[in-house]
């Protein structure tokens, strides 16, 4: 029998099929629900493909920024919200100085990077002190950062930090308004070089940047730093014994992730066109992490394919389920509740299944050790 046949046969045994299903429960669930919801939503194929392409280029960078902390064993970096805040501060300045187009986007990236590095450093130090409970700590840290951000942007800007443009500042004299019009940089990356593939506009520059990032991740894994992080991710104590400076490397992984989240947020916002000053960053943490989990990643293992599969599936669900729910149930409002129920329900299922899968995998490994 050829190797291919053997592999297929191995695949088709009940135990392996069950294992495949178990390992990929969430993506499969999303695929099934999407398959039912797409025709129900009555959206045209061109509209769906346009929306999906938009969502893909908007969110991929942010989700990709989550990969490095997972490699380093820090779990899902909820602290990416801090990077998003840094990016927003950069955008506020660029809008104030009236720098438009691609120069505006890149200048925002440059001036917010030092801030993102500082925030990443603080986040990394705190997460190190909470070893073992990184995800919850990151989650709460994001709330704390929200308070500091409001202090700076709602009270400091205009009063202590000079802001020139009156359209940015509240008429009381200080504090940035709750929405900032990013018309200057809107779609500058997306429209720079773009061609139409049928109904779908393909933004070349943004896709190029995302592709560069993917290459960076692949290259990074092969460097000494990347290998160090992988070692830390597998076992901290063994890594320490091998001479790797564990604490310092963990901080570096968070700094890299925060800076990448900062740039990702700028790419996200140049696509959105409007900055929701006090809320744009809140959405980012949970949705990026959820998208990554939906793609089949786990808290300890994530690959680039997980990112793209996850973004497509997660956002496809978000696009079709409200209308599908409305057409199924007949009421717009219940359709909205349906969407919330389905999407968040499946995310919860993802986390529960992950915990259960980890338990079962450990069980299987113990069985193998026993020689079964």
């Amino acid at each position, binding site marked *: 029998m050829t190797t291919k046949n053997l592999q297929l046969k191995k695949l088709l045994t009940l135990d392996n099929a069950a294992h495949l299903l178990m390992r990929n429960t969430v*993506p*499969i669930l999303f695929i099934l629900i999407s398959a039912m919801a797409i025709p129900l939503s009555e959206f045209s194929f061109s509209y769906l493909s346009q929306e999906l392409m938009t969502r893909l280029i908007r969110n991929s960078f942010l989700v990709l920024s989550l990969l490095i902390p997972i490699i380093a064993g820090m779990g899902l970096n909820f602290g990416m919200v801090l990077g998003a805040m840094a990016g927003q501060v950069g955008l506020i300045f660029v809008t104030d100085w009236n720098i438009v187009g691609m120069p505006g986007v890149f200048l925002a990236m440059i001036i917010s990077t030092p801030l993102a590095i500082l925030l990443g450093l603080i986040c990394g130090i705190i997460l190190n002190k909470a070893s073992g409970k990184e995800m919850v700590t990151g989650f709460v840290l994001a709330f704390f950062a929200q308070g500091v951000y409001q202090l700076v942007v*709602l009270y400091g800007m205009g009063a202590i930090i000079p802001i020139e443009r009156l359209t940015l500042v509240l008429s009381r004299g200080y504090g940035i*308004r709750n929405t900032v019009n990013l018309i200057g940089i809107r779609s500058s990356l997306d429209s720079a070089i773009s061609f139409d593939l049928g109904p779908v506009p393909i933004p070349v520059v943004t896709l190029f940047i995302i592709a560069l990032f993917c290459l960076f991740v692949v290259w990074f894994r092969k460097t000494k730093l990347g290998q160090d992080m992988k070692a830390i991710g597998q076992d901290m104590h063994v890594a320490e014994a091998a001479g790797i400076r564990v604490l310092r490397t963990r901080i570096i992984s968070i700094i890299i992730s925060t800076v990448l989240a900062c740039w990702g947020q700028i790419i996200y916002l140049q696509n959105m066109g409007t900055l929701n000053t*006090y*809320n744009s960053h809140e*959405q980012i943490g949970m949705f990026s992490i959820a998208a990554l989990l939906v793609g089949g990643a786990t808290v300890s293992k994530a690959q680039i394919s997980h990112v793209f599969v996850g973004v497509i599936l997660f956002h496809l669900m978000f696009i079709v389920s409200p209308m599908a729910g409305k057409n199924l149930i007949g009421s717009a409002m219940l359709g909205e509740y349906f*969407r919330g129920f389905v999407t968040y329900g499946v995310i919860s299922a993802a986390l529960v299944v992950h915990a259960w899968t980890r338990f079962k995998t450990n069980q299987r490994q113990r069985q193998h050790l026993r020689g079964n």
Partner: protein
Amino acid sequence: MINKNSILKILLFITLSVGGLFSSATQAAIAKKSKYHIGVVTGTVSQSEDDLRGAEELIRRYGNASSGGMIKHITYPDNFMQEMETTISQIVGLSDDSKMKAIVVQQGIPGTTEAFRRIRKKNKDILLIVGETHEDPLVIMTASDLTVNNDFVSRGYLIIDSAKKLGAKTFVHISFPRHMSYETLSRRKAIMQQASADLGLKFVFETAPDPVSDVGVAGAQQFILEKVPAWIKKYGKDTAFFCTNDAHTEPLLKQIITHGGYFVEADLPSPLMGYPGALGIDFKDAKGDFKKILKTVERTIVKRKGAGRFGTWAYSYGFTATAGLGEHAKNVIEGKSKLKNLPDIMKAYGKFTPSANWNGAFYTDNNTGIKANNFILIYQDTYIFGKGYLNTTDIKIPSKYYAIK
């Protein structure tokens, strides 16, 4: 090489293509009877019930698009602050209909401007109308054809004036940072402060938790329930209260009716805003009939010794805005009205508010002096339970209040 990963990818590809084929087929199969469609976007009942009821009224009059009628109604997410992408997607999704001639968004939550920009890029003809914008006026003005807001400038003065007429000596303004970052609400507070000083009331700013923060709606409401009696004790029973958030209103009313104090009107007034829950009123025989609803609430308040202390707009603002803007859009499409004509707009609103008086004007931004030609401020006369209309629409507001920052 076939392995687990590639099976997943193949499955994904099959689903997307089959789904795509299906979706095109379904679109073609739906029979459409109405000549054109009007899209209406509102919140859900848990967010802002009155807006949704206004949409239902439009559906009742002009039919649901899915059964051949005119109105296509969708809702934006409950936690719209965190889900701007979904909001934009929802609104833009409405334009994926070749018969769509107008889209009304009430309320104009963050994301509306961007959604309108995207629709405009594909379609130059759809009328884009916003009621009650949450985004900065200067931002939404650039994307929408018409925006109608409650007159936060005039009401800054009129609410204080009404409070004084009722007998209040202190005015407590309850809000939180996110709302104070809204130009509209922040400016109104400044006007209220100045008006209080001029009319001889003491102005106090109190903070309460934001319902979309980590404590949630329940936490915010509990805070109000616990704090208001203490405030009444501190500032006395001659205190008028005002809160900027709908979720705070119900517990606030509950405590005022028990412990004393005044409540002129809510941020977006309606006889259904806070009163039903706070007073435990049953409306089963007054459904949809605002005259009856008003009378029912008034009866309960007078019975609970609250006459002359509580006010509202006789007709719900949210309900009227949705229905009125939809009606106005229909009039404009059929050539009976001009889009930015103030009397035409008030005519459309007036259809749903017989016997109530309205007043309005175009908006001027304070910082830049830019006067809008597509942004209108509008307000209704205030009705005090147990007393009647205060005739606020007849009062001429001193022009200095329009210049306060």
